[in-house]
């Protein structure tokens, strides 16, 4: 405030107005939250563009610019890049979802920010849990049904498989201008 001493009242008021304007612009910056698993910040508004950084579900970002179905955002850490609009939500995901509630891989994913590939391998080790085996025994469930469920739970679908699948079908962020897929 000492710096402003001696300045004419009009200039003081003008400076205050500028400060207030800057503050209001900062406050008005739109917020979004990452809502989809396997989201990456891209250098350009294209699914095939290079990754800047992978973003976990629940990450808060500020909108810098919008361009059709892509949104340019800035993370709290200061990284800037593009995210497909379908991967962002206007409201913060619940704490349970953002933290991921699967004890088999959720906590490690949350704490160590491990890659999607590692999370995928954790997913793929699923089979019948010991509790389910005990339940099946107590109910006299047929071996065929047990083996069927074991096979269903053991099927592997990685995040990379899903990306290739969407790309092949030209779906979402991989859509061309027609957007119809093949």
């Amino acid at each position, binding site marked *: 405030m000492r710096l402003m001493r001696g300045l004419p009242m009009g200039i003081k008021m003008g400076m205050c107005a500028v400060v207030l304007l800057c503050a209001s612009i900062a406050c008005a910056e739109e917020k979004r939250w990452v809502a989809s*698993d396997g989201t990456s910040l891209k250098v350009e508004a294209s699914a095939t563009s290079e990754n800047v950084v992978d973003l976990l579900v629940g990450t808060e970002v500020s909108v810098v610019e919008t361009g059709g179905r892509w949104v340019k955002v800035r993370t709290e850490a200061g990284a800037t890049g593009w995210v497909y609009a379908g991967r962002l939500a206007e409201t913060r995901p619940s704490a349970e979802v953002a933290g991921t509630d699967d004890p088999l891989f959720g906590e490690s994913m949350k704490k160590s920010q491990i890659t999607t590939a590692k999370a995928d391998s954790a997913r793929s080790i699923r089979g019948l849990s010991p509790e389910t085996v005990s339940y099946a025994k107590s109910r006299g469930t047929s071996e065929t049904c047990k083996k069927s469920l074991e096979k269903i739970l053991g099927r592997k679908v990685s995040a990379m498989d899903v990306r290739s699948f969407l790309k092949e079908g030209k779906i979402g962020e991989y859509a061309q201008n027609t*957007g119809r897929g093949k």
Partner: protein
Amino acid sequence: MKKLLFLTVTLVLCSSVFASADFFDTIQSVVSPDSKEGKIIAGASQMLAGSKDIDYKTERTIGEGLALEGLTRFGNPVKNDQLQQYVNLVGNALAANSKRPTIPYSFAVLDSPVQNAFAVPGGVIFVSRALFTVLENEAELAGVLAHEIGHVAAKHALKSTQRAQMIQGAGAITAASVGGEKGKKLADTVGNLQTMLFDKGLDKDMEFEADLAAMETVYRTGYDPAAFIKVLEKLQKLEATSKDKNGSWFSTHPPLAERIARLKAKLATYPDYSTQAHVDGRFQKYVKMK
């Protein structure tokens, strides 16, 4: 009015004193679900159910038990690995954009002649072979799968029964404890949910919620959300001529006309929906293989 007031006060007192799943389930079983008393009990039960979270391991154990019962009742998976993998790819692409994207999901096409799809807690989702006769492209399949993902994400089945709370109440479920009292409670819960999922159907508000969630998930993934409405319209035509509705989407879901009307209202919020993907060729390639 006095009767209703008495019933409500009784329920509140009992819930605080006993917090008993069996108590609520017993009352629910003797009162007509369409009566005023039935609706109050269902609401109170759901409120209490929603007040406590069940851990994922317990949720998954209940779901796997239900999955075994579903396989026993509706048949084993269609023996076509490429079709099963295809459905898992569509399903997992959708699940990543659902309201609960951070748990693992598994999908299977069952060799069942009944047109149905159902989800069990924890993320295992089944679609019947017969339902594929109604579907014409990947976006339509996506609508059906996303509806079921919506149930898993919102934990609808678990919120529908108090019994699930009782399993968790006495500590973590283990393989050893499944053989004892806890095992009995697990069997009770699975039995209760079986009736609800396979015969009676979930609460109709839960179905509407899953429909709207499906549309959002389908749209965010990049499929045309109008395709889901088309599926329901085709089922509506089939319903009119169907003689045996047992165990089908007709018998376990709310009236299709109301669902379609609500979805059409929601569709208006997606101005660019018609530019989204349908993916006919790939769908035909895998589904013809079945």
